[in-house]
């Protein structure tokens, strides 16, 4: 394999900023570099149940150790290193980059060319920038500029410790110095180019909750509610902000409220999980078997549901909801296949209609990353393999594209390699015909190197993989760099000298984003591997025409080189593989996986709640469950089971004092089913998917991965009409088919015949239907059954009044069925059909 001959130069001070971002933008200050997790295990409840079901005023929420980062403040006090560049000693020296290169071969440009202020730039810094300080001192140098109070704004932190600040404000100041200053300036009001103020959020009262759940953006678990209040206390004092609170910590003084959670029973959890994982509504016998199961037994039972095609679809659908792989639509990359995949060309030319083959192929390419995730989960492999696997999954059509040695049957997926791409020539395209000597060694790097992933986030000559960087961070580190995008001042938008390297308004994001983008350097805009220069690079042709390009380069000289968190990718390493290993080793990876899978279980984004206490509890739970996930050797089934076993999923009601709308738990795992889950439920109960299929999926809140990328989880009129239409249209046929079977084999009406009119039998059948369809267990004389019986009676009376004994009335339909005379002589079928309509359009039927 050919590797980089020359890597672009990175000035040392840029690296120091990257290291700073490693610290400020990632995890805990010292832990990020020491590989330790500083969130105290003692601060995290080991029992997720107790973490919710508690009588907890905000002030009693245990504070993670990170809220009092002593190592930071000591660093602050001990350092006086500054990051301000030295006096400008190279001004007035250049009129172009070539002149700079005489003195500084690594120069990337000349700023203010030909003026008295011109200076040579080396990847963002003036070329005579000093040797950077160590990472620890870099941090403290930033911290050193944090003011202590409004009366001593200009004083250094080293001299301000204890300078009139309360203990709380000091904690806030210290944390701010370590984690916040880079993006928000020394005192929360922005100040520098690319820095943003959040003081307004203090005034409007959103600062604390937002900070507690989302800050620092790079690892939101670092700052909990108390930490956020600490920061607020410091900033309120510093700026004299009138918050309208009687104190800066108003929530802490709220009266304690006492709540107890009523948990779903084991069989209820099992039932819901069974639908979730595609197994359908469990049989009565299976549910009986689960009754009374203890924690370990139930967890094992839940893991037992994670099997088969149902679970496969759960995994693939859940992953696609995040990755949107099924949304790749473009056709242009397939034209690249014609040039680089000779087998593809042969197949296309052999097809009478190439578009048929194209469509079949693209539909399988979309599934490739999803199948890989399923393969990893199904086989209990470490979940990290979704990013690090040195293989992929190959299907029927893909086996032909990839020149897989043996045919793969339609519908099957096997572990394999891409051995179908040709190496290009130095100045042109590969030869048209297959030639083993031109075979390219494709380096699989989990889903990151899949054609679908790379095409979902395509690149351009100027984007240079930054979208891939953004989404990779978003999906696998839980970090949305766009959400951290600072306000851009147009006056700062100096584009004259490579702003992403040189303009602080831009570098604030690009120092984090661009090294990860460079990790994808071997893949071209359309996701093909090393399409240039005899499989040496994937650089744009336009770039190669510039004087920045030198033969042998694999990445752009005017973009930061491949790396992660301030560390450059070592020479000789495959950039994407190295990046993948770094991603899965990052402390953010575990919580990000929890965040990734949370919506598939709970039907809500993580941290969707607005209750401060709940946010904090949720945050602590995520830290805890992510630790367990890591300790399980990244077993996703174990993680999913832990989510299902938690009270976040099991809570189904609250009891206690106070207004429950202000309870610390505002939502439960019980939720509206997705259209896919409704299909599973309907099929298992009725052997009929009904109207929840693809045609009505959009109306019932489903996504198409292209135009509609997020699920609509609300109940509204259109969804209700899907529910009604489904029950109106399908119930007659479903009831008819069931009654048409011998009684003992019926799934819905095993306790009655149409000739049965005796009340006890009718009630027994109603009890059975309530359990099967609604997961409600009632006695035959319960209120719910009384009401259902009244409905049955009313519907029967209505039918008697109509006097129609045929299966299908003169004016009414029974979809798909032929009429039968003298079918409903007792008018019970009309009544049971109506009951089925009522129960299959009930709120309980569409939720689990």
């Amino acid at each position, binding site marked *: 394999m050919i590797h980089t001959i020359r890597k672009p130069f990175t000035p040392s001070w840029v690296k120091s900023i990257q290291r700073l971002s490693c610290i400020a933008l990632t995890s805990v200050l010292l832990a990020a570099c020491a590989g330790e997790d500083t969130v105290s295990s003692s601060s995290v409840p080991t029992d997720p149940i107790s973490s919710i079901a508690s009588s907890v005023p905000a002030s009693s929420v245990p504070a993670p150790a990170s809220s009092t980062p002593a190592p930071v403040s000591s660093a602050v006090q001990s350092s006086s290193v500054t990051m301000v560049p030295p006096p400008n000693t190279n001004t007035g020296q250049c009129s172009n980059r070539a002149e700079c290169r005489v003195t500084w071969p690594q120069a990337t440009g000349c700023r203010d060319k030909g003026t008295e202020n011109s200076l040579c730039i080396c990847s963002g810094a003036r070329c005579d920038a000093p040797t950077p300080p160590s990472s620890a001192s870099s941090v403290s140098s930033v911290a050193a500029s944090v003011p202590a109070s409004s009366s001593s704004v200009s004083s250094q932190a080293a001299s301000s410790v204890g300078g009139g600040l309360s203990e709380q404000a000091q904690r806030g100041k210290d944390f701010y110095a370590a984690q916040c200053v880079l993006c928000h300036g020394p005192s929360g009001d922005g100040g520098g180019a690319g820095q943003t103020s959040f003081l307004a959020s203090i005034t409007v009262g959103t600062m604390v909750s937002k900070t507690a759940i989302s800050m620092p953006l790079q690892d939101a678990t670092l700052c909990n509610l108390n930490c956020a209040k600490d920061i607020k206390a410091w900033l309120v004092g510093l700026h004299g902000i009138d918050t309208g609170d009687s104190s800066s910590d108003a929530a802490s003084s709220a009266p304690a409220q006492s709540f107890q959670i009523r948990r779903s029973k084991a069989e209820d959890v099992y039932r819901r999980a069974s639908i979730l994982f595609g197994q359908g509504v469990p049989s009565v016998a299976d549910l009986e078997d689960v009754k009374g199961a203890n924690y370990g037994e139930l967890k094992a039972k839940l893991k037992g549901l994670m099997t088969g095609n149902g679970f496969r679809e759960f995994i693939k659908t859940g992953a696609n909801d995040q990755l949107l792989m099924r949304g790749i639509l473009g056709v242009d990359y397939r034209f690249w296949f014609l040039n680089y995949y000779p087998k593809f060309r042969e197949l296309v030319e052999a097809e009478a209609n190439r578009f048929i083959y194209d469509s079949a192929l693209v539909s399988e390419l979309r599934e490739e990353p999803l199948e890989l995730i399923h393969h990893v989960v199904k086989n209990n492999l470490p979940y990290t393999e979704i990013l690090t696997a040195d293989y992929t999954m190959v299907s029927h059509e893909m086996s032909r594209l990839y020149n897989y040695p043996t045919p793969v049957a339609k519908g099957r997926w096997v572990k394999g390699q891409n051995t179908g791409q040709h190496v290009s020539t130095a100045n042109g395209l590969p030869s048209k015909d297959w030639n083993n000597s031109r075979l390219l060694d494709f380096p699989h790097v989990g889903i990151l190197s899949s054609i679908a992933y790379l095409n979902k986030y395509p690149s351009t000559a100027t984007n240079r993989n930054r979208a891939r960087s953004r989404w990779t961070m978003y999906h696998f580190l839980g970090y949305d760099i766009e*959400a951290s995008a600072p306000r851009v001042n147009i006056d700062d938008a100096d584009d004259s000298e490579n702003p992403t390297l040189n303009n602080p308004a831009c570098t604030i994001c690009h120092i984090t984003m661009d090294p990860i983008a460079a990790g994808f350097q071997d893949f071209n805009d359309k996701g093909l591997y090393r399409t240039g220069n005899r499989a040496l690079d994937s650089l744009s042709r336009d770039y190669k025409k510039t004087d920045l390009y030198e033969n042998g380069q694999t990445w752009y000289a005017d973009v930061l080189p491949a790396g992660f968190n301030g560390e450059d990718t070592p020479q000789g390493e495959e950039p994407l593989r190295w990046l993948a290993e770094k991603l899965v080793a990052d402390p953010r990876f575990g919580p990000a996986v929890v965040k990734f899978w949370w919506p598939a279980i709970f039907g809500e984004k993580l941290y969707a709640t607005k209750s401060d206490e709940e946010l904090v509890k949720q945050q602590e739970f995520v830290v805890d469950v992510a630790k367990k996930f890591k300790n399980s050797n990244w077993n996703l089934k174990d993680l999913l089971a832990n989510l299902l076993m938690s009270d976040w999923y099991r809570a189904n009601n609250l009891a206690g004092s106070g207004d429950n709308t202000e309870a610390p738990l505002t*939502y439960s795992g019980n939720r509206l089913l997705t259209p896919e889950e409704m299909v599973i439920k309907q099929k298992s109960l009725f052997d009929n998917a009904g109207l929840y299929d693809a045609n009505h999926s959009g109306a019932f809140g489903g996504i198409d991965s292209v135009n*509609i990328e997020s699920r609509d989880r609300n109940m509204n*009129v*259109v969804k209700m009409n899907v529910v009604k239409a489904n029950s109106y249209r399908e119930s007659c046929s479903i009831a008819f088919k069931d009654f048409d079977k011998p009684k003992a084999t019926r799934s819905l009406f095993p306790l009655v015949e149409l000739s049965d009119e005796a009340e006890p039998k009718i009630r027994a059948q109603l009890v059975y239907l309530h359990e099967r369809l609604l997961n409600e267990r009632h006695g035959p004389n319960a209120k719910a059954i009384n009401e259902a019986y009244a409905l049955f009676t009313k519907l029967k009376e*209505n039918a008697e009044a109509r006097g129609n004994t045929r299966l299908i009335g003169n004016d009414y339909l029974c979809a798909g069925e032929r009429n039968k005379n003298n079918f409903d002589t007792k008018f019970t079928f009309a009544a049971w059909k109506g009951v089925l*309509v009522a129960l299959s359009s009930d709120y309980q039927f569409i939720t689990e």
Partner: protein
Amino acid sequence: MNRRDLLKLSGIALASAAPTTRLWAAPTDYQGQFLIQMQVRGAWDVASYCDPKLNKNGKIINNWAKTKGIETAGNIAYAPFANNADLFEKHHDKMLVINGVNSYTNGHNAGQQYNFTGSTQAGYPNLSASFAATLQADFPMPLLVNGGTFSSGDVIVPTRLGRDIETFNTLLEPNVSGTKQYLPDEDIRAIDNFRTKRARDNLDKASIAADKRFLEDFLIANKSFPNFAEFKRVLKSVDTTGFDMRENLNQQMLYALVGFKSGTSVSADTVINAFDTHSDHDNLHAGRLTKANNAIIFAWEVAKQLGITDRLNMFIASDFARTPWYNDGGGKDHWPIGSAIVMKSGVSWTDRVVGKTDDGLKAYKLNPNNLRRDDANGVILESKHVMAFGRRLMGIENDPLMRNFDLRTDGVDFKFDY
């Protein structure tokens, strides 16, 4: 404030509070305004649209400017690019073009959020949601949405219609197929009563906020709204000849306007994607602009057919804009200063351009009162100002709901409609 409080505040009877007395009749007598908010996602190139720029000093801002000059329709300058002429020549009289709007970001999500809500803070409602939320009680589908960057602000339950007209048609009258019904009316009534009572009883027992909320929404949705038949009738009445109804944005517009006319909806959030043309800009961007322009033209044509032209308000905006130059790949990258377009018929303040940028697409400061350039004391226009105007235009700026979503304009009110 939680949603429950917001609903109370807005005068919406919670299902649990007055479920039996609430009359959910269609507001057939509604004579108020309608709103379509249009998201142009990916960042449009206003220099090739409503803030046209010529090439200066050898610097190529637009390839079209090599051979063509700026066109003018009425009082509005536009770029002779894509099918802009079709839109501007036909509808300049309804247009207020607001140029020089600074989004202060180059990040798509932040830009979309700022331009469609007026705030960079998460959780603020899109203008479409804000407007619908003030009126939602009497409409079955007060707000139609189509994905994109949409936030309800938790003040309204939006409705997504799906993507297929035929499928949606079948849902308008769920008990009907052709001339027949699946169930007799008397059975439907009995079942509806049974379903409603069960949900209501459970709502009274529920203690978890999300469960309560779901049941409240369920009960609202469960009501039989008589005007869906009218929706179906109005839909059939629209003549779409000459318009490509396979185009998704055209479908979105059609649903919205039919919803307005039939009394089911008052607001819609429409979306067109793929304006992020970092490469092959001219070709790709022209294609997207053509679709967008056609859809706007189509919307006004349908509004005219339905007799609601004077009640229609349209707010069109994008993430931000694109660089006033091409990159090496023939694309244009992100540029924070862009434009917004407000469309309304029969008012005095349209056929006008407000806001101004220099040759390099940098915004001048404006005096908010006279909208003239004021370098000394003026204010840079921002997305929040446009959205604040939107609230004022729609008559919701003082609605109690909006107090929770302060746009923080510091009292600056650009007098776009004076």
